[in-house]
């Protein structure tokens, strides 16, 4: 397996860290490694060249020579420059206009249709009333796909048979103005940036509709060609931003750096899963940290805060103190954990360098969660409060009721018993210690 960029940089920079003085040769050695790592992460060749030149200039300069910890200083420079390249600030979506118009464009298969719906759902949740527009009249089934996804998300979708894309968009905006929808999100057909006629069509849509945002949808797994496509789309349309898709795989996502460097446009969102709410605001600073192996702890904390009910957390804490943690509470904890996303997703946000190696590529069977839930739900309320009454006949009934085996039930009960023992040991004092840590809002299992 390849080490990822973060691991590689970490490895290289660890060697530098210990040094009291950095020779130019030391710096060159590290920069060579960083160059290879960035290329392997699919950052564009020319972008890497510029990046390395920028880091080198600063790394052999005064700030490092005068530093007592030159290794640390180089780490900081690499991180700084990476963040600078990615854009410093998180960039918000512009939905100005009545109705506001957001136009999505991109190559075939980059994920425009799914992204359009994710974006609309995101806007709906923050109080807007968006309208989705099926402007892809070329790919068979494209309009149906948008319609089905829109229905699933409870969003309106504008379709028109037999009309061209420009006409559809115009009618959609008129419809939106009448019905009070804003913004209007245009899902255009995927096209090659070489296809002059198709690019002309996009220009026409832009000229007629005057969108507040023209967003390029880019597959995070794209290689060196990301710059060619991005530059062409930017030249033709004057992009205002980028949405990165499929960032939930194991891609190192160098395309993000390339596209940003070539267009100068901010990356506004990142798609991180197949579910319709798997779209996150893109935080350049955090992405840089993630690449450098410092982990995306900020996102993790935000997720935890968003999905944890503070009130429930306080109740739970009380119960734990009084050692009244029941199987019902256990199930609730699991549910809250699941609300944060898949375990794999959560793991990917943790600083990889701090995790034991076996855990870094851990894959968790999500079905296991469901099984545990089913087992607990197959118990009577009394059994959940006092698991000690569960004898073998009850075990058999629970296993049958939950579609599992007696062994599964036993395993769960054993785990629960262990956990109770743990809480007993922690007692009052242990809790205070836990609370002092960066853990916020009841999270006893982390």
């Amino acid at each position, binding site marked *: 397996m*390849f080490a990822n960029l973060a691991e590689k940089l970490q490895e290289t920079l660890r060697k530098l860290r210990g040094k009291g003085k950095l020779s130019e040769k030391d710096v060159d050695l590290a920069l060579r490694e960083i160059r*290879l790592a960035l*290329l*392997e*992460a*699919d950052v564009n*060749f020319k972008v890497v060249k510029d990046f390395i030149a920028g880091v080198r200039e600063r790394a052999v300069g005064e700030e490092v020579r005068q530093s007592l910890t030159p290794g640390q200083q180089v780490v900081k420079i690499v991180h700084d420059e990476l963040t600078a390249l990615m854009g410093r600030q998180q960039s918000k979506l512009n939905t100005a206009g009545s109705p506001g118009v957001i136009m999505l464009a991109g*190559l*075939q*298969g*980059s*994920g425009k249709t799914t992204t359009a719906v994710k974006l609309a759902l995101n806007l709906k949740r923050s109080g807007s009333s968006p309208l989705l527009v099926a402007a892809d009249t*070329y*790919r*068979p*089934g*494209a309009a*149906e*796909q*948008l*319609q*089905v*996804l829109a229905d*699933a998300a409870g969003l309106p979708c504008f379709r028109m048979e037999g009309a061209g894309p420009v006409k559809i968009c115009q009618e959609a905006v008129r419809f939106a103005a009448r019905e009070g929808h804003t913004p209007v999100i245009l899902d255009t057909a995927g096209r*090659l*940036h*070489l296809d002059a006629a198709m690019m002309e069509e996009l220009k026409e849509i832009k000229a007629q509709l005057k969108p507040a945002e023209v967003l390029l949808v880019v*597959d995070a*797994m*794209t*290689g*060196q*060609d*990301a710059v*060619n*496509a991005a530059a062409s789309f930017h030249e033709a349309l004057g992009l205002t931003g980028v949405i990165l898709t*499929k960032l*939930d*795989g*194991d*891609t*190192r996502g*160098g*395309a993000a750096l390339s596209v940003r460097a070539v267009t100068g446009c901010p990356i506004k969102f990142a798609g991180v899963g*197949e579910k319709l709410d798997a779209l996150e605001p893109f935080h350049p600073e955090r992405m840089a940290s993630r690449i450098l192996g410092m982990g995306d702890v900020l996102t993790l904390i935000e997720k935890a805060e968003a999905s944890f009910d503070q009130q429930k957390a306080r109740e739970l804490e009380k119960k734990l103190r009084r050692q009244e943690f029941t199987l019902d509470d256990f199930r609730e904890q699991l549910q809250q954990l699941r609300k944060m996303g898949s375990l*794999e997703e959560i793991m990917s946000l943790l600083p990889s360098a701090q995790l034991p190696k076996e855990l870094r590529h851990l*894959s968790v*069977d*999500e*079905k296991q969660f469901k099984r545990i839930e089913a087992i607990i739900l197959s118990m009577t309320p009394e059994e959940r409060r006092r698991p000690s009454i569960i004898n073998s006949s009850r075990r058999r009934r629970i296993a049958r009721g939950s579609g599992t085996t007696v062994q599964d039930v036993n395993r769960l009960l054993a785990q629960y018993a262990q956990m109770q023992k743990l809480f007993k040991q922690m007692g009052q004092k242990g809790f205070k210690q836990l609370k002092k840590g960066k853990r916020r809002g009841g999270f006893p299992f982390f």
Partner: protein
Amino acid sequence: MRRLDHLFREGELTEEFFDSLEEALILGDVGVEAALKLIEQLRSETRRRKVRSAAEAREILVEEIAAMLSLQEEPPDPGGDPLVILMVGVNGSGKTTTAAKLAHRYRQEGRQVLLVAGDTFRAAAIEQLQIWAERAGAALIKQQPGSDPSAVFYDALHAARARGIDVVIGDTAGRLHTRVNLMEELKKIHRVISRVQPGAPHRVLLVIDATTGHNGIAQARYFNEAVPVTGLVLTKLDGTARGGIVVGIQEVLKVPVSYVGVGEKLDDLLPFNAADFARALLA
């Protein structure tokens, strides 16, 4: 875009020449590891053969890459049963369109083709394949969206025998190779197919987008671990991307490239030509 031509005209084998070749390979998404290795080999080869001209050196590199990519897919032998082909790959790589193009190819040869709507997850994927099936003149087996894809294949294989179909082409849902559960689902599809018809699927085609970077290597590795891949299809080669990642894939996994996709029309699927591909990579 003939960015390298001036180098070959100038003729000398300079450091700059090798560096530029390396750059061309990396820009073509060949992959850093494979690119460095190829250039190293070229250096020693030109020394050994006392090659002086850049044009000659390029020919050596073209031959080397072409040789790497010249593997052929084993001709499948379904006996008297239908030939079964399974399309797999990540989201948006072009599986559905490629399945349709492949159906069209077999139809041109006069064979009876059955398309299987095995992508029951993506919204309207079934409708998309249905439209393609009509255009290609192929039959279609489908079920409700959200149904078990393995069940769709179970039905399809029985239907294929009953109807005297020659070729069964199965579309599957796009899945990121890191999604364990989805890869398990793919394994199950494969298992069910080979249970209904021993020896099938005869061809498992991994569809890779030509714009893919290093991630293509991981895709090939993981998919091949789940279901033994017999060939690659490199799609969207009509853009500016060169699809060099198939060279990188060749380094770790010996899987032949079977077809390339070069457009949105039904006949835009061509057999892979290693020499042409290598030449385009270094153009």
